[in-house]
């Protein structure tokens, strides 16, 4: 099964920019550990991953009344904090949840990727 793992928010953690250099290094180390945990786990394959530009770098497109409107910023307050994603194959949901425990304490949204048409 393919899962889209969205790092949707910082939870109780301070934002990335508020961390000291040491804290940022520790955070990066957890991301590396996550990659390693995925590589070591049978039936798990990392397909794609990326850190995403923060909310201030976002551009939103909205179509209302047939017209597409372009604005600066994310589509909602909640989306400000989206920091990155992983796309991975795993045998089941519990495997993904266990692996996510290795990551820093983000708010995480796990979606199954639906099979194509």
């Amino acid at each position: 099964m393919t899962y889209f793992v969205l790092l949707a928010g910082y939870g109780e953690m301070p934002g990335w920019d508020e961390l000291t250099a040491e804290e940022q290094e520790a955070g990066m180390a957890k991301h590396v550990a996550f990659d390693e945990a995925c590589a070591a786990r049978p039936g798990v394959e990392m397909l794609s991953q990326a850190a995403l530009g923060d909310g201030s770098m976002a551009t939103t497109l909205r179509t209302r009344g047939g017209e597409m409107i372009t604005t600066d910023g994310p589509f909602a307050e909640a989306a400000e904090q989206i920091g990155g994603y992983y796309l991975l194959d795993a045998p089941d949901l519990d495997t993904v949840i266990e692996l996510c425990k290795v990551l820093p304490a983000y708010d995480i949204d796990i979606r199954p990727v639906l099979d194509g048409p």
Partner: protein
Amino acid sequence: MTSTSGRSSTGPDGVVEPVFRAEWGRLLARLVARTRRLDLAEDALAEAFARAADRWPRDGVPDNPAGWLYTTAYRQVVGWLRAEATAGRKAPLVAVRPGWVPPDDDQEAWADDRLPLILLCCHPALPAGSRSALALRLVIGTSTEQIARLFLVPTPTMAARLTRAKKKIVLAGIPLGAPPVEELRSRLDEVCRTIYLTFTAGYTPGAGPDLLRTDLAGDAVRLAALLHDLVPDAHQVRSTLALLLLQHSRRDARLQSGRLVTLAEQDRALWRADELRAGLELVDGLQPDEGYAEELRLQALIAAAHARAPTAAATDWPAIAGYYAALEARTGSAIVRLNRAVAVAEVDGPEAGLALLADLDEALPDNHRVAAVRAELARRDGDVELARASYRTAIGLCANAVERAHLTAQLDALS
């Protein structure tokens, strides 16, 4: 007598009903484990029981009823799988944990499949209401109609809830199989929460003849008893069963002439002695613990204290107040504080109870029970004005007609 399947125990399928009660969960668990097709397994087993209801009254009950049903259902699934294979779509299989070994058809081992099925139904990734519905439907065999009745919703609503939950299990890859050892305790906590939610649904006031659905609350007790059989060493499971047995034993005393009877007013001769005994025995074996297990133990101790009192006047309120205090310290729950206020009022007088209610209007703004308790304590304290105002507030907030009538009667009795 209405069965969990919703069918009568007399008549042509009266021979099937006891087999249904005993075997549905075991058989379904084995079928799901064997085929990984949650959708087909349930339908096939239901058809097998329907066929049994048709044949067995004529042909006699087979020597091995469970085996007959399993073989019939399994053959049906295989037939459907063959038909599907030609359609060329990808099969909606339940995910399994790595290391999962499909069972072979050793009948002795069928009982083992129910724990993975319970854990599947009660997975935290499923909505709370869906967990209850799935556990009742798949493990106990309660019909969709009866589950809808339990939760006071229309049958199509409950049917849709079940369908969505089964869809999520397959699409999100919620797996069959043992959780990692370090997770088992928290997963069992979740199962116990689900069972307790299911139980209390039966005691949430409805309307008319369905004011309480204690028969269906009984299905939750069966679930707790089954789980206790499967994991006898798990403390939270033991506490849950104790708590449910003790609360459920009072069911015959809860209603009188279509109205709810409070604990203080209940005819204790109507409490079921054998269930009380079983519950008290379980409580006596409990040791102090941590986390959710300890919360459940404290609730069970409170229920046991009520159970041990031969009359309302003989209730050990100081002990109960102590347990509520410990529970409040653990959970910070406003509802617990409300119940504690009642106990403290019994021990130290109404003023002491009223003092504890001070912050609760803010914490529980729409809850009529805060106002109702305040009214009762104010009445005992001789503060008629506060009692009157509080009863009025409670009546305004109360959504249930029977409870509202009870409060109105209390208000009228003041004048």
